[in-house]
């Protein structure tokens, strides 16, 4: 998925706030990870439980960062003791799918507690999408406004009725934030928790993709290649016979 595609999807999903949410999410999650890793270090505990509370930190952080946006309200899934941000009719739910393996996303299962199932099944109030695009939003380009205008005002209601959920899937431990992806969920298997994505993209991908600037076959290291030779030549000695 291209960066333009991800931005377009964010605008279509979250309305005028989509671009801002997409831009801020990596920063917000990196900062959360750092705070939790610091807390783990400061605790002096070998058990990783301090960092393990990042799941709750993520929920609170999303509420703090995005809960007061124009098209947002807070939603409590039945049986949960936390609140989830609902933005433009779509729930925004953080999911730590692995502690160490970014690739595990392909076969990770969402543990389906009753509260989590309620994310996908429980009816949620409808908040009309904000379509006053004259409201000052310097982050939006003309192309963004075109997308928002053409996508119509009914989208918030449709998303709400479809029980739309966007998962923010991340792999992390106190040693690092290994991956950060997000996307909307097409379905979740109630028995296995297998997630079928409709759309998803990596929010750390631009950095990782840019990592390789030379083709792998031509990757040189500091000890390869021809060693430069210091050119030392004998001085000419004057010949007495000449």
């Amino acid at each position, binding site marked *: 998925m291209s960066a333009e595609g991800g931005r377009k999807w964010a605008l279509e999903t979250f309305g005028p706030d989509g671009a801002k949410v997409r831009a801020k999410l990596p920063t917000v999650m*990196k*900062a959360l*990870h*750092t705070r939790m*890793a*610091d807390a783990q*270090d400061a605790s002096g505990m070998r058990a990783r439980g301090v960092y393990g509370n990042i799941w709750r930190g993520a929920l609170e952080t999303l509420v703090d960062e995005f809960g007061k946006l124009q098209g947002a309200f807070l939603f409590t899934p039945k049986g949960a003791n936390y609140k989830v941000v609902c933005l433009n009719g779509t729930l925004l739910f953080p999911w730590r799918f692995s502690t160490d393996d970014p690739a595990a996303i392909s076969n990770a299962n969402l543990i389906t507690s009753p509260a989590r199932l309620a994310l996908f099944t429980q009816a949620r109030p409808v908040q009309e999408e904000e379509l006053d695009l004259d409201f000052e939003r310097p982050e939006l380009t003309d192309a963004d406004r075109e997308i928002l205008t053409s996508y119509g005002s009914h989208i918030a209601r449709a998303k709400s009725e479809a029980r739309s959920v966007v998962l923010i899937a991340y792999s*992390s431990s106190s*040693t*690092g*934030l*290994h991956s950060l992806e997000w996307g909307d969920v097409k379905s979740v298997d109630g028995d296995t928790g297998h997630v079928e994505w409709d759309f998803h993209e990596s929010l*750390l991908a631009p*950095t*990782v993709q*840019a*990592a*390789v*600037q*030379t083709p792998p076959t031509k*990757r*040189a*290291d*500091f*000890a*390869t*290649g021809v*060693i*430069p*030779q*210091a*050119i*030392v*030549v*004998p*001085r000419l000695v004057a010949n007495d016979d000449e």
Partner: protein
Amino acid sequence: MSDDDIQLELISEPSTPARTVAKSFEAARLTQARVLRGLTKAALADLVGVTPAAIGQFEARITTPRAELLTKLALELDVPVEFFATGRPMAELDAAEAHFRSLRSTRASDRARAASFVEQVWELSFALEKRVQFPEIDLPEITPGTEPAEAARALRAAWGISPGPLPHLVATIESRGVIVSILSLASQEVARVDAFSTSSLGRPIIVVTPERAQNVYRHRFTCAHELGHLLLHSDAAPGDLSQEREADAFAAEFLCPADQIGPSLPSSMNLPSLERLSRRWGVSTQSLVRRMGELRTVSDSSVRRAYQRLRSVESLASDEPVSAYKGEMPSLLREAYKIAGEHGLSLADLARDLRWQPRRVTEVLGMEDPRPALKLV
């Protein structure tokens, strides 16, 4: 006997008698030899049976040692008697004219000893340059006030270094006419010097201690740091700590340009990834962590934690010795000696020219294997 007669006698007589040397005694040579041996005036006086004041007077050119005493001094200082005679080019380097890597933790006496070593490196190179032509010095002019990172980019461009890891750093530096030497004074005291450089003797010289050379990554960063001094601070009086920071910034950009290493750095403190990058770019993992902090790819607290983790596993990490990397071992002086040898110069000739013990010549040439010898008991 005139001065000319003494010169002729020195050249024609390999074992010039001490009485002749006494007549042309060069006080600075006594200081150089004493400092190189790491002896105070009092300690040397004790060894040869005179008062410390007498040694002071010899070095201050107030009096001249007698022939018998010169023989004793030569024995204790492990030099031929002829070493103390005048009649050959001499470098005099004030320790205050050299950039020392660990300025604050280095004692003045250690700095003086290291400076005396550089004097001998220069004298050896001068003796060789009479027979062979060294590469021309190729260091671009850097306008005073230039940012270290900008100077590093300018040097990469001037030397035509391709984007990516900088291969064979020491060989590259030497091919541009700068002498690099691994200090052969392998004592604990001089180890504190770490490294130093000077351009005040005409040809720029970089000296690294064997301790720094135990790890190729530290060695490379150290050499790049000293190169930074030669470019940025050739006219400035050494000693300012801000110069050390500038040399560090130069080395970081020279070895890992921000626009090239930046995209390669992981988005989190993933140590296995950093170790892979370290092996590719030839810099330590600690340097990469620092680079991540400088380039703001991670938070300061992440950098602090990474340092803590690296310290905790430091004892488990194995060093990559410089000797395993041909492009990082100094070779300019040895190459010059080899070429001169092919045209008739022997070790004995060179030792006689310099008035050194032949063993000392091989030490300064870097031909002695610094590795400890296996002894069967």
